């Protein structure tokens, strides 16, 4: 019971880190970016390849995964994404699907289509158990580590968004781009840095999740729906919405697969459709904000 809950929370936290960048960019630029998973895959593969081929320690790989994905995000934002902010959604969807297809095929070409295995360091491999019987809580150390890192990141993100000057610029741009630009905020720089950080977080999430989620070239397509669920259900106006949505999704998915494996992913999708039919703007939306 508790073990399931624990695994669900770890999974949800991971999904949150993976998807939070998408939530912010979607709220900021109203850009439907289906290629977000590709950045996560880049981070995951950076980690796996560095560890397998160069023997770089796991903890060093994580910042590198973040930096790699963020740099790629920045370059793509400057060169390609920026032209599409004011295009119709159909164009954005087509563009990001194209990018995803390219990422999938290139990874397949350069690394191979088999699932990559991440060799975790020894100190993350253990498992601690507490309690007895039905209330036993078994915590894998690796999942504990994921929760710790993601919780720290969440607090840091919340601090940056709520307390710093950059955060208030960002929130101003999300609420109304034109007025923000009129007040002298350099919206382009805000866009660029947000996109880069969001992609970097996805890369970090991919690196952290390489062991839990499994890394193969179809990763961006397999998990695209999960990222989008987090964003669509959680709304894009805050980061607490996506956080709660990600935790719900993680727990529902883990519990659903454990208790009713026959129905599998069925529950998650039906729940999502039901929620979106009921509240099309997402569950956690501020009233009066711009849709």
């Amino acid at each position, binding site marked *: 019971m508790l073990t399931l809950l624990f695994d669900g929370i770890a999974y949800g936290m991971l999904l949150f880190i993976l998807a939070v960048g998408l939530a912010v960019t979607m709220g900021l630029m109203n850009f439907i970016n289906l290629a977000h998973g590709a950045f996560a895959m880049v981070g995951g593969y950076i980690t796996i390849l560095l560890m397998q081929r160069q023997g770089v320690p796991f903890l060093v790989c994580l910042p590198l995964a973040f930096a790699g994905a963020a740099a790629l995000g920045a370059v793509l934002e400057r060169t390609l994404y920026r032209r599409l902010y004011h295009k119709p*959604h*159909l164009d954005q969807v087509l563009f990001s699907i194209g990018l995803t297809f390219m990422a999938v095929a290139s990874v397949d070409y350069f690394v191979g289509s088999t699932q990559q295995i991440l060799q975790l360091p020894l100190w993350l491999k253990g498992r601690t158990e507490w309690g007895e019987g039905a209330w036993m809580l078994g915590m894998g150390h690796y999942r504990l580590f994921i929760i710790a890192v993601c919780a720290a990141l969440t607090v840091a993100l919340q601090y940056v968004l709520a307390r710093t000057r950059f955060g208030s610029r960002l929130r101003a741009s999300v609420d109304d781009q034109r007025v923000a630009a009129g007040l002298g905020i350099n919206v382009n720089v805000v866009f660029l840095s947000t996109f880069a950080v969001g992609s970097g977080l996805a890369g970090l999430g991919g690196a952290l999740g390489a062991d839990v989620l499994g890394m193969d070239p179809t990763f961006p397509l397999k998990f695209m*729906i999960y990222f989008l669920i987090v964003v669509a259900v959680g709304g894009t106006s805050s980061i607490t919405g996506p956080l709660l949505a990600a935790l719900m999704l993680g727990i529902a998915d883990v519990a659903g697969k454990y208790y009713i494996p026959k129905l599998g992913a069925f529950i998650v999708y039906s729940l999502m459709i039901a929620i979106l039919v009921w509240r099309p703007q997402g569950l956690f939306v501020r009233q009066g904000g711009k849709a």
Partner: protein
Amino acid sequence: MNVAGRWRWWELLLWALAFAAPFGLAGHALIINEIAIVALFALSLDLILGYTGIVSLGHAAFFGMGAYSAALFAKLVMPDPLVGLAVGIAAATALGAVCSVTILRGTDLTRLMVTLGVGLILMELANKLDWLTGGADGLQGVVMGPLLGRFAFDLSGQVAAVYSVTVLLVLFVLARRLVQSPFGATLKAIRDNRLRAMAIGIPVGQRLVVVYTVAAGAAGAAGALLAQTTGFASLDLFEFHRSADVMLVLVIGGVGWLYGGIAGAVVFKLMQDALSSITPQYWTFWIGLFLVVLVSVGRERLVRPWTWWRP
């Protein structure tokens, strides 16, 4: 009938060519059959995407629904193709009517998610109901009876190609009639500005439900054709890439133009054929690159070559 509704000479020529192709290019009848099916699928998407402005990533749900119901009907009830086609269309139409309530509210993102979710749910269903659908192995052992009790489906695919082109023509004429009617005009009004459409008294919700249901039925017809002419249905029918591919097909040919789906299907299938014979495994890369370049340059330019050299 108004001027726009009149058949032009080149349209008649085009359809004459389409019917001549399976006989003139007998060796390529199989690919002509595939082109006709993809064209029909793209045509159905055009009704909701091009004419009504609903971005859908789950149109493959109806395609797969039509395919599975036609295949199951042929396997379990009777092998007649035309009755099977009607069953496929009916099943997809029913599914479309049910799903149409989910696309009425919300933003583009919400609709994207809901359509995607419906596709995934159907794929899960087809996967898990393996006693009925064969699960991940696909539905095998579908044997089709002869068309009209006389023309058996042959290996070279000539009968199949003529059959598919005929169904395409029938549904094309119906779709053409639909979009040129006052009903079609209201659809375009909804696409261009939903708020104003509502303000002049167009029942937006009802129109969306009807067009979504009709488009689902047409997609189901395309799926049924595929299942009948290949004698096989698999989970691949519901895959995400199928919905993405059909969107690409439509965009190549041009959205909001009924011949767009047909032109796109011809280009896409020939491109796929050529690319996958060069790089069988990695042709998605080139499709992806094509999409990225297409959108960066501006997709409306593709069908207007005279604008290519303008800044």
